[in-house]
């Protein structure tokens, strides 16, 4: 009698302790189920984090049927753990409360002196939708979600291989975010996986709310405008990279997956290249390369040509430019700078606007503003054209984060051109190249396969060779390089 009372009090006490540990939350449910044998089993969970059907249909009636009593939980089973009640009170309480917060259901079987932690996690979230940032005309329309379990499913669905490896980590002292390292065993070089493990383990932070948190910690060089990790929300893209022997990092709570290593020219290839005819893909890839150069250099070259090296401009064009500039107060450098900044502002505004207004505003704003400025004689028409062209070319690049870095580069180049003309642009370009060739992403030179040169790989960089011509088993140079060392 006393014994039972003490145990009942024990179970109740534990429940109470969990309740106090969580600060008596409104969504904490603590119900008692009576088994067929008449024993009372305490069942504690957060109703906001669990699958109600699972509790009602599976847990409760298996308790009734006394299932837990019969087969004890196998150790190391993530879905059902079991603690002896004799263990230290403190540890039990911590374990139990942590389990409850992690969306598990705590069962306290007083008679059998056991505590079972059953995983019944089911958080609210959105379903699989089309990726917003990387839409394609042809190819799968599935994008990652915020729920890492769904995301894992999306990847597994594409690579049904026994060699697909997932490694779980919890990062963030407070948020305890689930982070997964994903790679293909045998394809991905071990050094790369270990390096990724090392860098992730080295992270000291309290919370990880988006994969960019992780990116900032594990990227090679901090002071660089170029991304050294690829981020995507397309399962097919991630699968393709995994099959090239790269390593991906999935973060719970965000649809964006990080992929390493990343080389410069991969920034110009989008998933769609591989869903299209080879010739078209090649053409588009070249368009992207060209538009990169235009986006970075066009305004600076314009400034250099119009303020330092006018002899470059053909006579007729020079005359008409000169006529346009009659009565324009600002020097060309300031004109371009101003228009670029205005354009960036409009773009940002268009981004933040509700989608309905957004695009209209950005386009109309740009046109109207440019028009008005020219009419008012504040800006010469040529500048508006140049800025518009660069603004458009900027959006051609498939990786958004890379587009941002292009903008930074553009402004620096305009500055240099404004101060030193072509010589300044040359210095900037040399500095840029020096930076690019010295940059490394997880030990892979950023400019592979050009510097260092791997001629065999140019067929997938300069052109997109038809698949039958390419050796399906050859990994990209970056991975081969890592495997060699």
């Amino acid at each position: 009698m006393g014994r039972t009372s003490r145990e009942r009090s024990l179970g109740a006490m534990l429940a109470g302790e969990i309740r106090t540990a969580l600060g008596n939350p409104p969504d904490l449910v603590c119900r008692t189920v009576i088994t067929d044998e008449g024993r009372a089993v305490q069942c504690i969970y957060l109703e906001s984090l669990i699958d109600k059907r699972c509790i009602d249909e599976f847990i409760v009636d298996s308790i009734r049927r006394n299932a837990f009593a019969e087969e004890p939980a196998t150790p190391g089973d993530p879905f059902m753990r079991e603690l002896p009640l004799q263990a230290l009170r403190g540890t039990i309480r911590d374990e139990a409360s942590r389990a409850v917060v992690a969306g598990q259901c705590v069962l306290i079987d007083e008679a059998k002196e056991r505590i079972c932690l059953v995983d019944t996690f089911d958080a609210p979230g959105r379903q699989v939708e089309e990726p917003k940032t990387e839409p394609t005309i042809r190819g799968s329309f599935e994008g990652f979600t915020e729920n890492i379990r769904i995301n894992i499913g999306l990847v597994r669905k594409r690579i049904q291989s026994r060699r697909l490896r997932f490694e779980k980590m919890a990062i963030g002292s407070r948020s305890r975010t689930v982070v997964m390292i994903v790679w293909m065993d045998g394809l991905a070089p071990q050094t790369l996986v270990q390096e990724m493990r090392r860098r992730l383990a080295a992270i000291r932070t309290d919370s990880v709310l988006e994969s960019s948190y992780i990116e900032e910690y594990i990227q090679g060089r901090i002071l660089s405008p170029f991304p050294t990790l690829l981020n995507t929300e397309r399962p097919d893209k991630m699968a393709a990279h995994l099959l090239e022997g790269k390593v991906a990092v999935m973060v719970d709570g965000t649809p964006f997956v990080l992929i390493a290593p990343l080389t410069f020219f991969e920034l110009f290839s989008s998933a769609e290249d591989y869903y299209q005819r080879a010739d078209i893909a090649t053409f588009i890839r070249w368009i992207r390369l060209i538009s990169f150069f235009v986006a970075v250099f066009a305004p600076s070259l314009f400034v250099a040509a119009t303020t330092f090296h006018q002899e470059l401009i053909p006579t007729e064009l020079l005359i008409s430019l000169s006529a346009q500039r009659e009565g324009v107060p600002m020097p060309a450098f300031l004109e371009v700078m101003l228009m670029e900044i205005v354009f960036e502002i409009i773009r940002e505004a268009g981004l933040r606007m509700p989608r309905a207004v957004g695009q209209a505003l950005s386009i109309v704003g740009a046109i109207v503003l440019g028009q008005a400025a020219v009419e008012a004689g504040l800006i010469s028409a040529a500048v508006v054209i140049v800025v518009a062209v660069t603004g458009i070319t900027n959006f051609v690049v498939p990786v958004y984060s890379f587009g941002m870095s292009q903008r930074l580069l553009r402004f620096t180049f305009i500055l240099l051109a404004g101060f030193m003309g072509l010589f300044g642009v040359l210095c900037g370009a040399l500095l840029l190249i020096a930076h690019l060739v010295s940059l490394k992403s997880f030990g892979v030179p950023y400019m592979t396969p050009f510097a260092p040169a791997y001629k065999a790989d140019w067929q997938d960089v300069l052109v997109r060779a038809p698949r039958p011509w390419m050796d399906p088993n050859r990994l990209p140079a970056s991975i081969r390089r890592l495997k060699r060392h």
Partner: protein
Amino acid sequence: MISRGQYYLLTVNFTLGTTLFVTINGMIEEAGPDAWMMPLWAGAYGMLAALLWIALLRSSPGKSPVEIAREAWGPAGAIVGVLFLIFFCLIASWTLRNLSDFMNVTIMPKTPPSIFHIMFLLVAGYAVAQGSETVGRLNAVVTPFLAFPFWASLALATAFWDWERLQPAFQDPWAIIRFPSLLGFPFMETFALTMLWPRVKSGTAGALLLGLASAALSISVVVFMVIGLIGPERAARINYPIYTVVQEVELGQVLVNIHSVLTVTLITLIFIKLMVLLYAAFETIGQLFRPASRWPHLLAFTILISASSLTIYENPIQNGILAAAHTFIYDSLHTLLIPVLLLITLKVRRALGGRSRRS
């Protein structure tokens, strides 16, 4: 580690460096229509000198000349190191001054020379701070962007080609060797490349020799084309014939003056030469004093060289006079005499050491 190909490209661009700007009219003045043979001869000589350096570097693998000097002469080697350091800095300032002279005469007359010096030095310093790989790869990436426009523009200019300008040929066979400073100026300065030697994977010797050969060849082709395009009379008088050539290039009827673009692409050659020299100087410091930091020293070099390139000579005329007299001696002092002495001492030491071991 930089690859053989990158080292080859470095050699070529280093040798072309300022040569295309400075020496062409001198050569043509000496030898008239036959001037295009001068670089070939000088290049052959340069390859002989390179063979000497190769022998030296082969004698103790994996070491740069400075380290070899220390190995051979111990503390006295440090003095050699300092000599080399000064040598590299001086060549670097010469290179920069040539650049600023050129820019001031041609497309940017008002800009103060120090601006060119400092900007190039800072960029080169950044590249050097990233290490030898960056130096090699930067050059490898830049080269096509540099070679293509240059040769394309020369090809375009051939619209005004005239064989008459290359005649009468082979009048004075000895005229082509009447220009000793040519041996020193482009070719013996390539000694700076030996500081990169330990960082190259393999087959360095071949790359160096081949690089020198093709550099000599391309210089001679350029001289040949300059003569055929603007004639020995003008080319011998104009200070920067290469500039005049690109100035008179016309892309159809539309782009009449593309010279500033071509000029700016061409001075990338000078940048590469500067970068290699800076790297050599920096390496020398590293091997002499083993410093722990990089940036401060590159900054110091920037200060030093930006100053010395202002005071390296009074004016091009004065420099021309003195260079004709002394370049050859000065260069051969560093790049022939010292290596020979080093080589001899090494051999002697090895011989003695060997005997003592045997006995």
